[in-house]
């Protein structure tokens, strides 16, 4: 129960922290999208209902606070969550190298989808963003993801202990 009560507040806090504090420590052209790591973690560790709810709420908050196109992140996070869920069911997804590679891949796919959506729906060409933004971002998030996975695991244990 505590999971559902805390979830909106914690996710909103995460998005706020991500868009304020973490931006201070990163370069201007790379955003520290920790929320994406959380979505992938949810795909690896949570069931479909709880994970999709988390991805939906997180995507919604991100859309509210940072996105120029409403529904973009909601859609992307739901897709990434289910992709992670499917992959987690087929392979052993606990090794740090795999987590890093998968996070990097998802970041890159997210970027490519954004570029594609912009091109198809709005006729805007942001192809330059792939080498300039998405590839460095995929590398940074990929390297950071094992650490955040470890922190999220500990947080989940703490949450379960309180819940029981």
């Amino acid at each position, binding site marked *: 129960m505590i999971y559902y009560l805390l979830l909106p507040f914690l996710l*909103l*806090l995460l*998005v*706020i*922290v991500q*868009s*304020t*504090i973490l931006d*201070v420590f990163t370069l201007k052209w790379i*955003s520290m*999208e920790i929320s994406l790591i959380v979505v992938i973690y949810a795909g690896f560790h949570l069931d479909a209902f709880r994970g999709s709810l988390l991805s939906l709420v997180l995507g*919604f*908050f991100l859309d*509210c*606070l*940072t996105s*120029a*196109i*409403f529904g973009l992140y909601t859609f992307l996070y739901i897709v990434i969550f289910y992709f992670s869920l499917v992959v987690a069911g087929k392979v052993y997804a606990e090794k740090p190298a795999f987590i890093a590679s998968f996070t990097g891949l998802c970041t890159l796919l997210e*970027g490519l989808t*954004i570029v594609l959506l*912009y091109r198809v729906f*709005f*006729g*805007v060409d*942001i192809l330059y*963003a792939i080498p300039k*933004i*998405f590839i460095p*971002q995929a590398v940074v998030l990929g390297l950071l993801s094992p650490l955040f996975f470890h922190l999220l695991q500990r947080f989940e244990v703490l949450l379960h202990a309180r819940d029981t």
Partner: protein
Amino acid sequence: MHVNPQKIPIHGTCGLLRKIVLETAAPIEDAINVSLKSLHDVWRRYLFLVGLEDENRRLRNENAALNDQINQYREGYLEGVRLRKLLDIKGDVKHRAVVARVIDKDRTALFKTLLIDKGTVEGLRVGLPVLADQGVVGRIIETAWHSSRVLLLIDDNSNIDALIQRSRTQGILQGAGSAGCHLKYISRVEDVRTGDVVLSSGLAGVFPKGLLLGVVSEVSRKEGGLFQKIDVSPAVDFGKLEEVMALVVDAGAKP
């Protein structure tokens, strides 16, 4: 990622949920941004203060170096003044003079001597008179190649033929240690007063005639005997001597 929303349709109105999220997030974001700005300001101020401390340390070092330089210049100036005074005396005397620096002073109560940095290489020898800008210092009693020891006129072993300038009365000026000197063998009938100037008489052949030795500080005729007891204050302040001048008087020549 942040995208350029130039060609993106902008939503004019927000849904209720979106409004709630924005309303909730805005004050938190504002609080975080204010805190971050404060932290940033504190950090910048810290960096500024660190810079100030560095600058302060550098200026202190620079100040110390400049003070040191000023002291050196001041020392040089004062040395120049003292040497000029010595050179003025040198012009007055007819003998060759060797200017020397005092390199050591005998601090024992028994002997009153000092060491100078000139010796036989510069032509100095035992017995030569040594002067300062104020008057007679003493005579050389020991020489090495590049240094000499000078017996001060206040040493108990120092005896100089002297005369009182005003009355031309002659006597022997004997050292009395820290008490100064005594002018001896002056008859009780001679007219000697406090403040009389005592000069070298030139009789013994060591000191040229007319060099200032000191000033009579006290005269006493109360003691029994033939002579007066005359205390003389040396003209030279031996405690402040830094440079002296040795007169190279030719051996056998009449001073």
